[in-house]
């Protein structure tokens, strides 16, 4: 089982574990069962069913259900679903939706990888992964990302509530946040210079997720938003200024500007009295909205001036800081009569100037502090190494006491530690995440690619990548609705995929034709003809045993299972052909129709087919006295008797049935050689009687003699006629 290859015994650190298995003790879970059975229950059997469900079978004492209590149930089987491994953030149905949706991007990327690799083999000098490849990976990443929910906020309503500065859209998920982190670090490799700003956006989208374990700027804003309606004079409240500087520190400029405009000095009745104050507030708001930003583009509604290239940005940045310094030194501050406003605004200017102490106070945890560094102190940070050292510095300054899975992942990425990233993905987000994230990780660096693709002895010769795909395929296989997509992942596993795929296909239930056909379709797609025909054989026997003889024969024929078909033919002989007038024979017609005329696939059933023809013509002979039909019947008889597939024990009944033909009233129907052949068969039969394995037919005891007499008479008549 790949699931247990979670590192050797001496390797206890989480970073090195390939598939982390939590060793913490859990409280036992209790699942109440409702069997609806009267005690006593004599036997209880528990076994694994599909996935993480247990099958519990309970049987009552058999003696109590024997006689009168026929209506009572003798036992019951229930399935118990053990709690899902998910964290509740994503429901089971949503998970399946993600699993379905990721099939196409994954398969597309695999086929592109194969074609890129085969191309690079032809060209001697080129690296396997080029710009074109990065585009493919980016496309893949975007496709997967879109499955994880949309991050877009709902559009502004026409009448916007002026007091509502915080827009709450669809609840973001950690899964999406984690994917976006990896996307920006691994897939968007060409845009390294914009990485800091990407992180700013990322935090803006997902800061709320961190609120679950600690205080964040987002949670501060949410709380203040609730308070807002009870506040009379907003600028007197110290929380207003605190929240403002916090939001500014993490760069949520549009929120800051919107909040600043809530300042009392904007109110028409106060504008006259507080002109200077209002001027200062507005000046800060304008400065904030003019902040230069080193990024590709800016989404609608967000503030700042975009600079794509570094030189332009530096110029603008210096100019902007100059304006801030100028404002800070202006004389208007003395004229500002409102102390809270003065202090609050000045603090905001300090944040914009990158005063480390102001930033430290304004932010709630190290990641926010880290982001504020990118915004106001080191906007040119490039390269993972310097980003990592900055992160460590921030962590020391404002440590987080409760770990969060997103933070763990981010640290792994910044630390360029592929094992940690894998472990965090697997631990925090499960096998789906690892399997799909590996595609991004392999493009991260050559080392990562080697690490993931290297075949490992301790994993039984498979690579880490393959291991995780196999684990994910197992998860998919364990659910009745997702097993069909497991093959996509299994066939991308070079070493063990095919073997596991065969096991998966064999294990599928096949009572229902639709499922069976879906299973066979997968066999056809992957050219597993052998597996397919075995499955058909299993299905055939299953149908046969359950009385659906027609379906059984159909599937066995499809599987070309001669052995089984012959055995079935034997069974049929036992019930067919006891006598011509037997009405039950009519029922076999349908089955024989089904067998078709192709003798090769129907094995021993070929006999039945001919036997049917013979009986049909024989019946016509009994009805009327037409020599032509009688002649036809004789032809069928001769064919049956000549055919080696006709069982010996049928010879006598056949001949006995044809007594009328043998002594035809008009003229002999069999010629000399034909009669001789039949006589020989009869002789053989007499000898066989002496053998111990001879099966006696339930014909009258003088049947043999009657046939012999008829044949002898016919022989005489035939000789006479031929002369």
């Amino acid at each position, binding site marked *: 089982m790949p699931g247990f290859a979670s590192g050797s015994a001496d390797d206890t650190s989480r970073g090195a574990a390939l598939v982390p298995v939590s060793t913490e003790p859990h409280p036992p879970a209790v699942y109440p069962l409702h069997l609806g059975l009267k005690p006593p229950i004599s036997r209880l059997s528990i076994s694994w069913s599909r996935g993480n469900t247990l099958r519990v079978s309970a049987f009552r004492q058999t003696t109590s259900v024997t006689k009168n209590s026929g209506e009572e149930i003798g036992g019951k089987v229930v*399935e118990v*679903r053990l709690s899902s491994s998910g964290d509740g953030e994503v*429901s*089971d*149905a*949503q998970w*399946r*939706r993600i699993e*379905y949706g990721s*099939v*196409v991007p994954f398969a597309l990327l695999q086929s592109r990888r194969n074609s890129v690799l085969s191309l690079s083999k032809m060209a001697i000098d080129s690296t396997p992964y080029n710009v074109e490849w990065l585009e493919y990976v980016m496309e893949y990443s975007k496709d997967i990302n879109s499955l994880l929910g949309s991050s877009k906020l709902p559009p502004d309503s026409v009448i916007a509530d002026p007091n509502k500065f915080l827009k709450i859209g669809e609840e973001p998920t950690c899964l999406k946040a984690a994917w976006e982190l990896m996307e920006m670090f691994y897939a968007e490799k060409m845009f390294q210079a914009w990485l800091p700003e990407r992180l700013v956006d990322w935090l803006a989208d997902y800061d709320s997720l961190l609120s679950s374990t600690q205080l964040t700027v987002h949670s501060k804003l949410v709380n203040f938003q609730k308070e807002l309606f009870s506040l009379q004079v907003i600028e007197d409240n110290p929380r207003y200024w605190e929240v403002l500087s916090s939001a500014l520190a993490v760069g949520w400029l549009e929120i800051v500007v919107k909040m600043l405009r809530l300042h009392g000095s904007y109110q028409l009745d106060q504008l006259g009295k507080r002109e200077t104050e209002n001027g200062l507030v507005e000046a800060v708001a304008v400065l904030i909205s003019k902040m230069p930003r080193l990024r590709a583009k800016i989404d609608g509604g967000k503030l700042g001036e975009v600079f794509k290239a570094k030189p332009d940005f530096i110029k603008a940045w210096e100019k902007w800081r100059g304006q801030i310094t100028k404002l800070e030194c202006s004389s208007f501050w003395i004229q500002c009569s409102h102390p809270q406003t003065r202090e609050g605004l000045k603090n905001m200017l300090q944040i914009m100037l990158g005063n480390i102490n102001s930033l430290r106070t304004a932010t709630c945890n190290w990641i926010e502090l880290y982001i504020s560094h990118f915004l106001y102190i080191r906007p040119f940070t490039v390269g993972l190494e310097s980003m990592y050292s900055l992160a460590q510095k921030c962590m020391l300054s404002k440590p987080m006491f409760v770990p969060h899975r997103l933070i763990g992942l981010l640290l792994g990425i910044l630390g360029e530690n592929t094992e940690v990233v894998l472990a965090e993905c697997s631990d925090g987000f499960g096998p789906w995440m690892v399997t799909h994230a590996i595609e991004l990780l392999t493009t991260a660096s050559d080392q990562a690619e080697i690490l993931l693709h290297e075949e490992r002895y301790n994993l039984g010769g498979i690579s880490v990548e393959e291991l995780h795909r196999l684990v994910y395929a197992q998860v998919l296989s364990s*659910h*009745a*609705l997702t097993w*069909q997509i497991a093959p996509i992942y299994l066939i991308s596993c070079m070493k063990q995929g095919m073997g596991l795929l065969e096991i998966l296909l064999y294990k599928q239930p096949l009572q*229902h*034709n*639709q499922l069976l*056909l*879906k299973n066979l*379709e997968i066999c*056809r797609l992957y050219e597993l003809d052998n597996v397919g025909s075995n499955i058909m054989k299993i299905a055939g026997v299953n*149908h046969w045993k*359950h*009385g*659906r*003889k*027609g*379906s059984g024969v*159909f599937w066995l*024929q*499809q599987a*070309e299972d001669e052995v089984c078909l012959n055995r079935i033919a034997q069974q049929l002989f036992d019930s067919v052909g006891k006598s011509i007038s037997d009405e039950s024979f009519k*029922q*076999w017609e*349908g*089955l024989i*129709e*089904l067998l*078709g*005329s*192709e003798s*090769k*696939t129907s094995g021993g059933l070929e006999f039945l087919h001919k036997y049917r023809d013979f009986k049909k013509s024989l019946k016509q002979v009994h009805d009327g006295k037409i020599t032509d039909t009688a002649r036809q019947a004789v032809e069928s008889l001769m064919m049956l008797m000549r055919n080696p597939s006709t069982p010996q024990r049928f010879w006598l009944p056949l001949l006995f049935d044809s007594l009328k033909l043998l002594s035809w009233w008009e003229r002999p129907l069999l010629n000399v050689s034909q009669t001789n052949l039949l006589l020989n068969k009869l002789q053989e039969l007499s000898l066989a009687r002496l053998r111990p394995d001879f099966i006696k037919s339930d014909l009258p005891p003088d049947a043999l003699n009657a046939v012999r007499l008829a044949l002898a008479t016919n022989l005489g008549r035939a000789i006479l006629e031929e002369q």
Partner: protein
Amino acid sequence: MAITEPPTPQIHRLQQSSYLDAVRWLPPLSAFDKTAALALYDADTATSSLEVHSLTPQNSLTSQSRWTPPSRISSLRTSNSSLLAASTFSGSLHILGYDGSGLEPQGSIGEVGFHVGCVSGVDLVDDGSECVSVGEDGRVNLVRVVGDSSRLSHRRVFDGNGLVGFSAVKWASPTEFFTGGFGFNLKFWDLRKPGAAVSQFKGNWNRGKTSGIVHSIDIHPSRKHTCLAGGSSGTLFAWDLRWQQQPIILSGARTGEVATHSVSESEVWEVQYDRYTKPSNIGNISSSRILPAMMCSEDGILAVVEQGEEPVELLAEPCAINSFDIDRHNPADVICSLEWESVVIVTRP
């Protein structure tokens, strides 16, 4: 080939959170009303349900009514008179009425002697008075749907004792119907001639070792002599009672002789005559020409196939399309159920 691209149909995907065993349109109760019946199966709890959903103008489905069958639904049909017939994997048949407010069970039958195991196909007569059911057990039963009896009575038309198995059934007239089964077998039955099928088609055309199963059949009301059938290996063919032993192959079935357009290579799960697509040369349409048909397949194709024409694909999905239904009253609308727990509504221009 036409030079101008035809206007593309609108496609709406509606993700569900359980597996869809069947989808059918229900006759509209008012002019702008669209309702559909969905047979759902929740694999996590192993429960199935039959739900009526109304389709809002924004193309989302809202559940109106719900009924719980004893087991998974194997076949679902609706009649013009707002009646639904649902058969189950456990061998029962249920008749339900829908009046806009809720699903009203009208009666059910599932006793020993009805069917053994899965009822693979049902069909209602247009006025909803009679229902025919077939199963893999080889039985053909006729169920009379009378007003308000909670237990329906049935009459055995044929019992194949498991020697033959049926997978599809469709009325041609109130007394005649067709069945489809294993080995590409089609049978034509007439209730006035009891005992056995009136005529049957053996699918022994020249195709090597492989045979197949007919999964779905359809009869056009104006051509009761022709049975349209879809089944294994992408086979779509028609059987005309007037030319009994020669199938008219519309798609698939590697015949070797005639080059037919093959839409799919895997199972054709459902076929229906497409009343929306007009035959291209309407002027000289003879009664031997097969009318346009729609099919869906395991490899995710929903296409309109016309005899001798290039097939038109409406959908090409990454997963199987298990069933579809064309709205009788507005044939531009098609509802499909996909393997990956979703419904797709195709609205043709």
